[in-house]
């Protein structure tokens, strides 16, 4: 017996018995393969070759899935196997129940309806943005038995160790009759999910938008795919990474200017990842203007692990960006990416090839900086996007926003940050440091303060009796905090008290900010731990929207030469 099947689940044992019944000739070391074959045989009656009609999708799932199975229902922060999630929701509960869902994203209402109905019981996941309020209510109400909330990379890793799916329900753009899949620009998690499932005796079922003679490129080879369901509608994709420049405020522009001059330029950061907030969109839109005037072109922001952010188009068109590898794609960017293959990773068919697992790894190991925003930061620099009524999950930010202890290759920013943190160690034995920057305005939406004495995540963990509070980025990984009041360099803090005052010193008029030790903050400023706009030669009155390379979605379309086709909800023409 292998490790997975000895975890003590009675469901697992039942499946082994069933496998023995279904394949008498098999030795006891190939039970799982037998069970997999039996599942496929049970579904085969509904299929012509591998193709199953959409109306038979639920029957297929009833035939293939067993009670208590670990099921990966593909869905992340962007693409969704929506037809299969509806089909799963409709199963006969006497045949399919108590599933253990192991999936990146809990995003569609159906994902949670599964638990309400009793189709599923246990959940291990990474991201739940749009369902953050409902998932919190269901966790409080005991409707969901929570395994853990993960980062993407962490959940992917567990697919190969102790959360290997019995059945994977995935989404692709097209399939040929043999079952070769084209996942298109939104390849995302699919190769990882299929790898873990297909090579460990699991069953892979794909929903596809169309069945074609020949797929444009093979993203998933046919021998890893067991059933194909043709969907009437293309699978849903959320335009998660589109930020309308029209909504960028003067405060965000000021904060972006501080980051560019105080961090990007200071360390010479070339390899990096950006979060999805408006502050980082402002940075992207200031590269061809403000940063160009500072003479930084070619010296910063050249290589990205990043989704195809529309806001980066002006910088790309201005020759700032050499290369971008992406977790997923972005709605409306397909033609632009295709035409800019020097910058993006594309397949022989010309379209983007994204891959979340590789890109997360790239962000962790090959980037010198992560910069992103958050909802709460405490006095130690711990940050969280959890509030008492919302659990948004982690997604990828903690992988980006963590110092990779296994990193061994040097780079200028990494070494410089390491030296700032630990000036006394001999250089040859001193670890570098990844720059992990939290950027934001001191007050967020509805005047909610960014800085708090105690994270809501702690209260939530107590209420749910979790062993770990859901901290997005741990304070000891954070190197800088940037607000409109200034830049705090935590690498230069030598004591916990200095660290706290450095944070208070950029916390503006929040309660945390107003309770600063003014003398100590002044001293930190003299040491350059805190740098105000005037220390960086920036006049807040210059933070004007005219600095943005694009001030509207329409401007982005113009920059792209008409190649960017934004989704309708972002248009005003």
């Amino acid at each position: 017996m292998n490790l997975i099947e000895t975890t003590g689940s009675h469901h697992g044992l039942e499946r082994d018995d069933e496998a023995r019944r279904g394949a008498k000739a098999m030795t006891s070391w190939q039970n799982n393969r037998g069970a997999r074959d039996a599942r496929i045989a049970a579904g085969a009656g509904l299929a012509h070759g591998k193709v199953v009609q959409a109306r038979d999708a639920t029957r297929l799932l009833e035939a293939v899935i067993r009670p208590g199975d670990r099921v990966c229902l593909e869905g992340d922060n962007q693409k969704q196997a929506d037809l299969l999630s509806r089909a799963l929701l409709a199963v006969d509960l006497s045949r399919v129940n108590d599933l253990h869902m192991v999936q990146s994203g809990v995003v569609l209402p159906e994902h949670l309806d599964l638990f309400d109905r009793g189709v599923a019981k246990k959940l291990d996941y990474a991201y739940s943005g749009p369902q953050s309020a409902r998932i919190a209510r269901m966790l409080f109400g005991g409707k969901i038995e929570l395994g853990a909330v993960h980062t993407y990379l962490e959940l992917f890793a567990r697919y190969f160790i102790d959360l290997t799916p019995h059945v994977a329900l995935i989404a692709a753009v097209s399939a040929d009759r043999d079952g070769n899949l084209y996942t298109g620009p939104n390849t995302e998690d699919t190769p990882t999910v299929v790898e873990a499932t297909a090579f460990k005796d699991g069953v892979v079922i794909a929903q596809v938008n169309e069945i074609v003679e020949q797929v444009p490129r093979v993203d998933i080879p046919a021998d890893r795919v067991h059933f194909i369901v043709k969907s009437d509608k293309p699978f849903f994709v959320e335009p998660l990474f589109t930020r309308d420049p029209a909504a960028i405020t003067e405060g965000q522009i000021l904060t972006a200017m501080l980051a560019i001059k105080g961090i990007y330029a200071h360390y010479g950061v070339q390899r990096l990842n950006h979060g999805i907030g408006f502050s980082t969109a402002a940075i992207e839109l200031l590269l061809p203007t403000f940063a160009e005037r500072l003479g930084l072109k070619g010296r910063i922001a050249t290589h990205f692990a990043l989704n195809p952010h529309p806001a980066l188009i002006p910088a790309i068109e201005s020759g700032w960006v050499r290369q971008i590898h992406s977790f997923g794609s972005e709605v409306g960017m397909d033609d632009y990416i295709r035409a800019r293959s020097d910058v993006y990773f594309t397949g022989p068919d010309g379209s983007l090839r994204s891959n979340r697992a590789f890109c997360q790894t790239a962000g962790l190991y090959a980037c010198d900086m992560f910069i992103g925003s958050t909802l709460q930061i405490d006095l130690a620099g711990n940050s969280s996007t959890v509030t008492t009524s919302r659990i948004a999950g982690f997604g990828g930010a903690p992988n980006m926003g963590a110092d990779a202890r296994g990193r061994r290759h040097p780079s200028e920013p990494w070494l410089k940050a390491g030296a700032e943190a630990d000036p006394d160690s001999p250089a040859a034995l001193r670890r570098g440091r990844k720059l992990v920057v939290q950027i934001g305005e001191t007050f967020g939406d509805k005047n909610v303060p960014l800085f708090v004495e105690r994270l809501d995540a702690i209260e939530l963990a107590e209420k749910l009796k979790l062993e770990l509070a859901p901290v997005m980025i741990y304070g000891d990984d954070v190197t800088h905090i940037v607000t409109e009041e200034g830049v705090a360099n935590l690498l230069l803090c030598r004591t916990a008290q200095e660290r706290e005052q450095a944070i208070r010193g950029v916390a503006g008029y929040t309660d945390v900010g107003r309770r600063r030790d003014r003398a100590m903050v002044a001293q930190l400023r003299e040491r350059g731990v805190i740098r105000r706009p005037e220390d960086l030669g920036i006049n807040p009155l210059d933070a004007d929207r005219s600095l943005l390379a694009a001030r509207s979605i329409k401007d982005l379309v113009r920059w792209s030469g008409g190649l960017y086709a934004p989704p309708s909800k972002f248009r005003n023409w």
Partner: protein
Amino acid sequence: MEDLNFQHQVRARASGTRRSAVVGVVASGNLEVLVERALPDAQCVVDIRTAAMGFGEIWSAVIGDFVERYSPGGLKFSINDGGARPDTVSLRLAQAVRLIAEDGQ
């Protein structure tokens, strides 16, 4: 709505000759600041009507820092606030001082 009033004695008179200026718009998260050269040189008054209740302490801190930094002597500021964040308030006040510091009417 809440009415707030702050009065400060300041070091020096604000520069420029313009009599009045207005910056900003009353909208959610935004504010308008009307500034008038209407007081003795050593005085500064800030009148606020705000849609966000109970932020008096923060206003006091924001206005205090502003007066300390810009020494807006002789100026009366009248604010209609749609619930702006403190950093937006600071920015608008600074913009108002810059505008009234111009010469002209």
